[in-house]
């Protein structure tokens, strides 16, 4: 009797199709060895919302009865493998509704496996992933987060590379031969993809994570109220109004202590307070009221609230005043304005380093302009998740922001790259 329970933690919309291919791939591979399986997603809105952490699951077992035994129909409580297809999710997962921040390794069984697709080192990832009270293994699949969209799929082989790696992690359940066969038969499969899966299988290595390793912070959580404690009439109280920041100056809106949004973020804005002209546009346009108004009339994006949508960058009229940077380049949510006013020189150096950080470049929010998809996929090293970005990357965005109008007009042949909301309801 043997079974395997896996989850895929992914970004809503951007990786919805990727996650579903992986979980289907797991079940179809296991079926090759006569096993039974089921693939399903955690229900709710997350898969349909840009960037919101979401989950898909695959459970396989030797017999149907054993499968039923482990088939929690909502969310498995214990997992053998967590597959994290965007390394910034290692900072924790807060889903659509109020669940608190859940460590990426929360559901892993002792000696379970965390498989992360990342260009970061294990040390860097373990600064993000919370400490766990049981040892587990960390496996890094070298590659960028494969962010695409609802209507487009990024054929960078991530799905098959994950399956290949999984065959190394759980060879008793998923042999690499079964994986290869399932990939070949899949409507999205090919011989080249089988090769990619095999390469990942051969190259991937795990490393042990001790109970002393990891981010020591306690993730925020809260107690759900009892039925008789809840307000009647399906009502929730509003947040109180905000307060000045200091000396009666500035303004900081009150924010929910139990529902933050930062785990949705794959990029964050960094702000050059020295070039800001205080036009208020970022503050007005931010859909999440993230900006605190500082006593001197600057705008400081609050990193507990920011979901990383990039609108502030797009509306800021000053070139390179707001720049979106890969979230992986940061280890905390500290205020940039506090840093700036403490030491302006040091802040300038920090800001410059973030903007030009080439280790963490290659982050996009799905696609940021027409034609980026083609650019990214031009013959590239698949081990690194596709070709290096030529433009549209942090620090090099100015020409994509409309400052040089019509620059992409000629790419009318490119596919639709905008990320659409899912059908409503």
């Amino acid at each position, binding site marked *: 009797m043997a079974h395997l329970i896996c989850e895929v933690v992914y970004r809503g919309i951007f990786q919805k199709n990727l996650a579903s291919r992986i979980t289907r791939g797991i*079940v179809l591979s296991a079926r090759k060895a006569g096993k039974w399986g089921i*693939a*399903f997603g955690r229900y709710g809105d997350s898969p349909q919302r840009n960037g919101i952490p979401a989950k898909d699951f695959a459970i396989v077992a030797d017999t149907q*009865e054993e499968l039923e035994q482990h088939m929690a129909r*909502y969310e498995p409580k214990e997992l053998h493998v967590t597959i994290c297809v965007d390394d910034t999710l290692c900072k924790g997962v807060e889903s659509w509704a109020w669940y608190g921040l859940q460590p990426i390794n929360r559901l892993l069984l002792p000696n379970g496996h965390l498989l992360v697709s990342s260009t970061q080192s294990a040390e860097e990832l373990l600064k993000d992933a919370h400490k766990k009270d049981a040892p587990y293994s960390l496996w890094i699949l070298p590659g960028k987060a494969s962010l695409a969209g609802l209507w487009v799929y990024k054929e960078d082989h991530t799905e098959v590379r994950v399956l290949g790696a999984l065959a190394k992690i759980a060879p008793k359940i998923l042999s690499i031969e079964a994986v290869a066969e*399932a990939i070949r*038969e899949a409507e999205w499969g090919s011989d080249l993809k089988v090769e990619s899966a095999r390469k990942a299988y051969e190259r991937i290595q795990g490393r042990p994570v001790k109970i002393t390793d990891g981010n020591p912070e306690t993730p925020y959580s809260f107690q759900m109220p009892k*039925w008789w404690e809840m307000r009647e009439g399906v009502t929730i109280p509003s947040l109180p109004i905000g307060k000045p920041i200091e000396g009666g100056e500035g303004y900081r809106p009150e924010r929910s202590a139990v529902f933050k949004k930062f785990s949705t973020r794959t990029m964050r804005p960094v702000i050059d307070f020295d070039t800001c002209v205080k036009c208020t546009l970022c503050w007005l346009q931010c859909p999440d009221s993230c900006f605190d108004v500082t006593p001197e009339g600057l705008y400081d994006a609050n990193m507990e609230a920011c979901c990383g949508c990039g609108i502030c960058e797009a509306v800021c009229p000053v070139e390179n005043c707001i720049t979106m940077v890969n979230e992986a380049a940061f280890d905390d949510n500290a205020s940039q304005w506090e840093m700036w006013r403490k030491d302006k020189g040091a802040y300038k150096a920090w800001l410059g380093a973030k903007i030009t950080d080439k280790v963490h470049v290659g982050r996009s929010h799905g696609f940021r302009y027409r034609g980026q998809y083609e650019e990214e996929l031009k013959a590239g090293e698949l081990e690194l998740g596709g070709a290096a970005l030529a433009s549209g990357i942090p620090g090099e965005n100015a020409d994509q922001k409309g400052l040089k109008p019509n620059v992409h007009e000629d790419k009318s042949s490119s596919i639709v790259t905008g990320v659409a909301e899912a*059908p409503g*309801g």
Partner: protein
Amino acid sequence: MTVATQAAPAAIQEQEMLISGSEAIAEALTLADIDVVTAYPIRPYDTVMQAIAKKISGGKLVAEYIVAEGEHSQFEIVKHASTVGARVFCGSSGVGWAYAMECLVVTPALRVPMVAMVGNRALDDPGAFGVEHNDALFVRDLGWLLCWIDSSQEALDTTLIAYRVAEDRRIFLPIAISADGAFLTHSQAITKVPSKSLVDKFLPPYHRGDLQLHPDNPITVAPQVNEDWVIEIRRQNNAATERAYTVIEEAYADFRRVFGRGPENPWFEEYMTEDAEIILMGMGTLSLPVKVAIRKMREDGKKVGLIRLRWFRPFPYEQLARALRKARAIGVIDRDYSFGSPFGSGVVATEVRAALYNAEHRPPLIGFICGLGGREVTLEDVYKTAEICYSAAKAGKTERATYWLGVRE
């Protein structure tokens, strides 16, 4: 995508697919070669819409796919299409189904054999997606035939059976197939998909005969009437509903003959009831945790069984009274509510209680409201129901008629 076919009686004529309950319904609709389908998005019904759209765009199904501007029109369109002789499909969820209510009401009286899927969803407010059965239960008194399914396989099979039953001239009534949101509509399981030639042996074409709206058959449908006519029309509908007891049994028998699988008893699934002291009951996917819990409880010597109702309308009251005659206590788990009902019970518990009123053996019956809004029915919840049933069996009476389980209190 296909994987190795398992040896089965009709092995050559069936292939395996990894599909969700919604996709399984779309497979069945393709095999049934439907003519008209209408769509208006609401989760989880939208998953069926998408699966059918893919079938049509992939050239696997030729049908009119009409996106309506709301659920009311959605059901109106297929109602009319059916009267001119089209095989139709439609569906919705939660308040979308409620928005179609005016049309749902008239469909049985017009004897329209529409097959609909209700992706069960909690009614607003609060806006939520999780499963509750109250949406489909809206129409339980109106002449709709109602059934619940619990797997992708059953979704596919029941859709075929539903057309066969609905389009039987003795019936000509609409059928709603209920599928639990998330647990069934969004879970992909390995499912046997039969060939079209096999399905053709089971499902004859739809002929509306003298009721068909056609220039060669001039009729008026749905005239306004006064009090001289209504009760007779209701009486006709009642007769058709009663005939469904026979027609459904015939359809399942034929299904077994053609496909070499399918249940002996169309009305409900019995799991380990043979020697059961306690019989738990429910509808839809809660069968899974209940079965797993029963297997665990049996290891401890507790003789618990499950009756999972498939058909709620017509309600198999005689069959149930027979199946329950040896139980020492009955626990009915309702994924619905009926505020202010007798004993504050859910809908199914109230119906089962009524079904047993004339029975010789009337064991204590306890209702459990559980799993509302998509809350998981846990193994612990099921152990609790069995425990409460055991104490009622011992006492020979019910302390309390209804319990709410899995609520934060």
